[in-house]
C-alpha cells in the first residue's frame, strides 16, 4: 500500500510563525488560496457554463493544435477542442471520483475497524490479518486488478480505488479507536456503569470518526491523482469525455507539435491535489492539537 500523503499526514510539523497581517485572517493565506481554488472547481463542476460557453467535446479540425492565445487560453488539442473548456468540464470527473471513492473507502474501512475493535480479540485478529494482507499490495496495482476484472469507466474506477484504499482507512480507524477505548473518558463511563454498546455508540464511534474525516480529506487528494493515473493508462471514461489524465495521454503524441497539450491538464491535477492537501493538513493541525 503506497500512500505517501496518508503516511506523511500522521507525523506533521507545520510552521508556527505567522506575520501580523496573516494573523488577522481567520485562516493562513495558503489555506485561503486553497479554499478559493476548490470553490472555483466546485463551481466548474456544478455550472461549467459560468466559465466557458464552448463545448468540451465538439471537434473543430480547422483549429487543430492552436497555441495559447486570448481566444484559447490554454490552446487547442489535435481535434481543435479548446483545452481550457475541457479542463473546466473535467473538474467534475476528478472531484466526483475523489470524493465518492474516498467516502466509500472510509465507510467500509471504518466499519471493518469498528467491528474489529468492538468484536473482541478473535474478530480483531482475523480482520486485521486480512487487512495486513491487502496492505501488501501497492494501491495502484490493486486498483488495476479490479479494473482488469470489471473493466474501465468512471464507476469502476471509483470502486477500484475504494477497494484499494479500504485497508489504509481500516488500519487508521482501528488505531484511533483503540486509543479512544484506552482514554480516561471511556474508563470513566465504564466505571459509571454505562453499558458497553452505549459507550461504543456514544463515545468510541464519534471520537474515532472525527480525526478520520480529516485524514480522509488528504486521502481525497491522493485518490484524485490515482484516478487520473488510471485514466492516463486508458481505463477511465471513454473518449471524448473530458478527463485530465486522459487528456494528457492523448496529448502525449502531440508533444513535439505543441507543449500546451501536455502542460495544462497536469497543472490542474497538481493544483487540485495541493489545495486539498493544504486544506487537509490545516484541518488536521486545527483539530488534533498543536503538536501532533
Amino acid at each position, binding site marked *: *500500500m*503506497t500512500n*505517501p*500523503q496518508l*503516511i*506523511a499526514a500522521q*507525523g506533521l*510539523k*507545520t*510552521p508556527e*510563525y505567522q506575520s501580523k497581517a496573516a494573523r488577522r485572517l481567520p485562516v493562513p493565506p495558503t489555506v485561503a488560496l486553497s479554499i478559493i481554488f476548490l470553490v472555483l472547481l466546485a463551481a466548474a463542476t456544478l455550472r461549467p457554463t459560468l466559465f466557458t460557453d464552448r463545448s468540451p467535446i465538439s471537434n473543430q479540425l480547422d483549429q487543430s493544435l492552436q497555441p495559447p492565445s486570448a481566444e484559447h487560453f490554454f490552446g487547442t488539442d489535435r481535434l481543435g477542442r479548446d483545452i481550457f473548456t475541457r479542463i473546466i468540464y473535467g473538474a467534475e470527473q476528478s472531484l466526483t471520483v475523489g470524493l465518492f471513492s474516498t467516502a466509500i473507502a472510509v465507510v467500509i474501512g471504518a466499519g471493518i475497524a469498528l467491528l474489529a475493535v468492538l468484536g473482541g480479540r478473535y474478530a480483531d485478529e482475523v480482520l486485521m*490479518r*486480512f487487512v*495486513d*494482507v*491487502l496492505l*501488501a*499490495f*501497492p*494501491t*495502484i*496495482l*490493486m486498483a*488495476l*486488478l479490479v*479494473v*482488469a*476484472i470489471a473493466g474501465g469507466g468512471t464507476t469502476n474506477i471509483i470502486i477500484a480505488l475504494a477497494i484499494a484504499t479500504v485497508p489504509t482507512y481500516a488500519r487508521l480507524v482501528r488505531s484511533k479507536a483503540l486509543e479512544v477505548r484506552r482514554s480516561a473518558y471511556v474508563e470513566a463511563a465504564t466505571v459509571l456503569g454505562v453499558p458497553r454498546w452505549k459507550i461504543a455508540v456514544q463515545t468510541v464511534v464519534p471520537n474515532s470518526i472525527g480525526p478520520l474525516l480529516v485524514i480522509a480529506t488528504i486521502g481525497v*487528494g491522493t485518490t484524485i*491523482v490515482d484516478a*487520473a*493515473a488510471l485514466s*492516463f*493508462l*486508458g*481505463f477511465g471514461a471513454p473518449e471524448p469525455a473530458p478527463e485530465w*489524465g486522459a487528456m*494528457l*495521454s492523448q*496529448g*502525449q503524441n502531440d*508533444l*513535439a507539435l505543441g*507543449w500546451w497539450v*501536455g*502542460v495544462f*491538464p*497536469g*497543472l490542474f*491535477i*497538481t493544483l487540485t*491535489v*495541493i489545495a486539498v*492537501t*493544504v486544506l487537509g493538513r490545516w484541518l488536521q493541525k486545527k483539530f488534533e492539537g498543536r503538536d501532533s
Partner: protein
Amino acid sequence: MQRTLLQILRRRLIGAVAVLIGAATLGFFAIHLTPGDPVLLLVGQEGAMSDEAREQVAARYGLDQPLVVQFFAYVLQVLTFNLGSSFRSGLPVSQMISERLAPTLELAFAALILAFLIAFLVAVFTANTRGWRKAIGSITELTAASVPSFWIGILLLIVFSFQLGWFPVFGNEGLRSLVLPAVTLAVPVAALLIQVLRKGLEDALDQPFVLAARTRGAHETYVRIAHGLRHALLPAITLGGTIFGGLIGGSVIVESVFNRDGIGRVLLLAIEGRDIPVVVGVLLFAALAFVVVNTIIDIAYVLIDPRLRVPA
C-alpha cells in the same frame, strides 16, 4: 541476538505465508469473477468451438473440477511459486515476469538512489531552519507529494527531449534512456523520504551528541551530515516496504509514459487483453517482494540497532 533474529524470521515467515494465501485467494476470485468462460479465454477464440473440444481444454487446465478443489489446487500451486500460465500466450507467468524483470529493476534502483540523493539534500538544507529555507523545504515536499508522476514524465519529455533534444523520447537503450524515467519515478518516493528524513533530522539535532559536536566547533553542515543523518536514516529504512511498493506501482506508469519495456508493460498488456492469470501473477510477485523486503529490513534493523538485541 540469535534468538531475536530467529523470532523475527519465524514471525515473518508466517506473515509471508499469510500474504501469499491471501493473495492467492484474491487471485482465485479474480479469475472466477471475470465475466466470460475461462475455457474460451484459454483458447482465445470465442464461440467457434465444439463441446467436445471445450471439455478437453477444461480437463487439461482442471477447470472441470468442483470450485473448492480448484481453489485448493490453486493456493497450493501459488505456495510453490507457480503462478500459472497466461490465458493468451500460454507461457508460464513466472517466466513472463522474470524475462522482463531486469529493465524494471534497473529503473527502480536508479530511481531509489536518486530519491535518496534528493531527499538528503533537501533534508540537510532545510531541517530545523526558519524563513525561506524552511519554506523551500515545505514547498518542495508538498509539490513532490502532489504532482502526478505521469505529468512529471511529460514535462521532462517536453523540455529535455522535444525542446533540448538531450534524451531519447522512449526506449530501453543505454544509460541516456534511463535518466528521464528514473527522475520521474524518483519524485514521489523522494517526497515520502523528505518527510521522514526532515523529521528524523530535526529530532536528531536536538540530541546531546549534536550539542557536544557543536561545542567542539564542528561546522553545521558537517554536524548535520555526519551526526544527524545517520539517526534520521533509521526511520526512513522502516518505510522500505512502502517505498518498494511505490516503485513497483510507479514503474507501471513510468514505463507507459516512456514506452519502456518491463513488468509494468507486461501488466498493462495483460489488463487490456483480460489476461487475468498474468495480472494476478504480477500482483502476487509484488506482494511477495514486499514481504521479502520487509523481512530484510527487520533483520537489518536488529543488526544495526544494538538496543533491539536485548532479549525480551
